[in-house]
């Protein structure tokens, strides 16, 4: 009972665009503070943890392709097929909540950065409204537009040059002695990096929108490799510029780097750096809204644009209800826990179930 593997060709994207999508989803705005916890655990050996995390995500990507290629459809349909109509819908509902909370987190984090670095008196709701209207506009354009926004957001790599300005403050002896931490500390650091690495699971929901999806696997792995490389850069940068003791006082070390840049014509470069965060935020919000509205569409059997306004409203209300830094941190901790279970427990579980079913059918 294979379902049609792909959508109408008019709605699909080329296989290589999986690279853009996965990378934009993984490399989210939480990178600004991602170096604090792992460095607290593993210090100068944190690069080992980053590589371990990258490899484990690559393994998860492989698992996901195994699931998807075997079933030939996306997770929304797989849920129904494996667990029945009601349980499957329940699981799909969990994913709607997950994506909506993820969108909330990204949006609230961006607004918080703007409030702290630029306009302390800015209320949360106007900016949330403007950005959600923008996201609504993009998502109502369909999946191809969302991927286009992901592509556009890669312009973020321009800010890599900001890392060179504090170079005279780098202390290279912070990188030695290597291998001075125990394996358990390195694994703890890896675990602390789960949240920044999340995003590959987006594949489970857009599989049917990829033209010749079986060819796209290598692009997903390359996207993960680029994410790992970017995170390594960020971690090395934090190690070179700050002492671990300093990092524990910082909230967003990657924004502090803009404080070292001064030009005669722009003295406060952090204004540009803080606002540039939008490039990390918008693609994720758009994809989250797209994915949750798509699940809603299939569950309820209505048009996607009919679900989208309600979901946007829910995100808007939730964002306005997160008042301060502890609220953002709580949400991040929750998403971190959920994402960890999703990538390292749920996806392998689904893989096993799929495997058992295939075996059972060939035996029967």
């Amino acid at each position, binding site marked *: 009972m294979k379902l049609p593997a792909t959508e109408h060709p008019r709605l699909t994207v080329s296989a290589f665009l999986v690279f853009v999508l996965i990378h934009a989803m993984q490399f989210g705005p939480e990178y600004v503070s991602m170096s604090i916890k792992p460095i607290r655990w593993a210090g100068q050996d944190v690069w080992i943890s980053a590589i371990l995390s990258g490899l484990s995500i690559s393994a998860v990507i492989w698992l996901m392709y195994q699931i998807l290629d075997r079933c030939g459809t996306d997770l929304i349909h797989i849920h129904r097929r494996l667990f029945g109509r009601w349980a499957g819908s329940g699981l799909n509902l969990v994913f709607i909540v997950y994506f909506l909370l993820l969108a909330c987190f990204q949006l609230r984090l961006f607004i918080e950065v703007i409030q*702290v*670095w630029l*306009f302390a*008196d*800015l209320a949360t709701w106007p900016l949330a409204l*403007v950005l959600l*209207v923008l996201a609504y*506009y993009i998502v109502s354009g369909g999946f191809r537009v969302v991927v286009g926004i992901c592509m556009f957001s890669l312009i973020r790599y321009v800010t890599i040059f900001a890392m060179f300005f504090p170079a005279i*403050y780098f*202390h290279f*002896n*912070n*990188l*030695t*002695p290597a291998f*001075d931490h125990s394996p358990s500390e390195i694994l703890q650091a890896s675990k602390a990096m789960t949240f920044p690495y999340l995003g590959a699971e987006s594949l489970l929901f857009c599989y049917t929108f990829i033209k010749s999806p079986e060819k796209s696997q290598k692009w997903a792995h390359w996207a993960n490799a680029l994410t790992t490389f970017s995170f390594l850069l960020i971690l090395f940068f934090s190690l070179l510029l*700050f*002492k671990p*003791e*300093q990092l524990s*006082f910082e909230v967003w070390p990657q924004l*502090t780097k803009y*404080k*070292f840049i*001064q030009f005669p014509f722009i*003295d*406060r470069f*952090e204004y540009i750096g803080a606002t540039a965060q939008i490039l990390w935020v918008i693609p994720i919000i758009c994809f989250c809204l797209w994915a949750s509205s798509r699940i809603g569409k299939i569950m309820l059997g209505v048009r996607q644009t009919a679900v989208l306004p309600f979901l946007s409203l829910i995100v808007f209300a939730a964002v306005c209800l997160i008042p301060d830094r502890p609220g953002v941190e709580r949400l991040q901790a929750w998403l971190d826990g959920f994402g960890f279970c999703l990538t390292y427990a749920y996806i392998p579980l689904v893989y096993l179930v799929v495997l058992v079913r295939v075996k059972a059918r060939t035996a029967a």
Partner: protein
Amino acid sequence: MKRAFIVVYLLCVLLTGCVKQEILEKSTISFVGAFDEAADDQIEMTLAPPRFHSGKSISVSNNLISNIGHTSKSIVQIMDMKLNRTIKTGKISVVLFEKAMAQKGLADELDVFLRDALSSRKLFVAVVDGKAKNLLHADFSSDVEKGMYLFDLLQSNVRTGFVPRQNLNDFEYAYLGKGMDPFLPILALRNGHVVISGLALFKDDRYVSSLNEQQMRMVKLLRERTKHGTLEARLDNGTYAAVRNVGSNVKYRVSRDQNRPKVAIALRFKGEVMDTQGFQLTRDEKQRIKEALEKELAATGTALIQQFKNEGIDPLGLGDIVRSKTRNWNEAAWKKQYPAVNVSLKVHVDILDSGIRK
């Protein structure tokens, strides 16, 4: 639907002017802030915003304002009440502390600048010999505004002189980092001029002792690669020769010696003879200058390191260097063995050229 989008976006564009505005002409901007102690655990803060005069021979002067309070931000609030334009502290580039205040610890005051999203990480911090307020009140710069003058004074001496670089970021790095202690330049008022008179050494964030100019040079040579500045060598026959620095390099080598770390410092100094007080530079003469300089630098450096060890402070960051070469380094153990650690200094001077004369 499309019309709704157009309306929303038009609103976004039109409403951008509705945020809190900060207009340059309506704000008081100071480049320097000075902190002194006051009675009852309070602090006295002095700001020196520039005042511009049109059509006068002296076109800029400073308007000095001081107030006493518990926190610097509340002092700014009090200051606002005597100014027609509100104070914006984001542009402060030099922060001065009275010596007595530095003795009690600077971490609390500097936290204000590290916490403020608007303040710079590259601002200079300096300790003032005497009251910081009096230094700002002195008439030391006639043509430039005082804050910019102090900033340029420190900046140019760090870049091309023998003042070791130490800004807010470096101070925090050395203060919070393990196995090192911060230091700051000392500013003093001499005959109406502001001079960098030496280096203030800190234990944690507390001022403990100071170094003179000569020792400050040595600290710079032992901490950074330099390619500026001039050293003077005293020869045996009582004459002097000036040697210009064309590149110095310092290397630290850590080894273990009877279960105790041993640090070998190798300083290479390349110089060019600039002033020989008239005598002709033969090969022997060059050799003598080289040896005299080597001896002098080694003697100053060794004495300096001994002084650091006796006082239990580590402005060179030797602890951090040992940490980077030792597994399971532990700060408490290092502090215990620090006074007895074997630190050797070897100076190698190369005299390359001697100007355009023999």
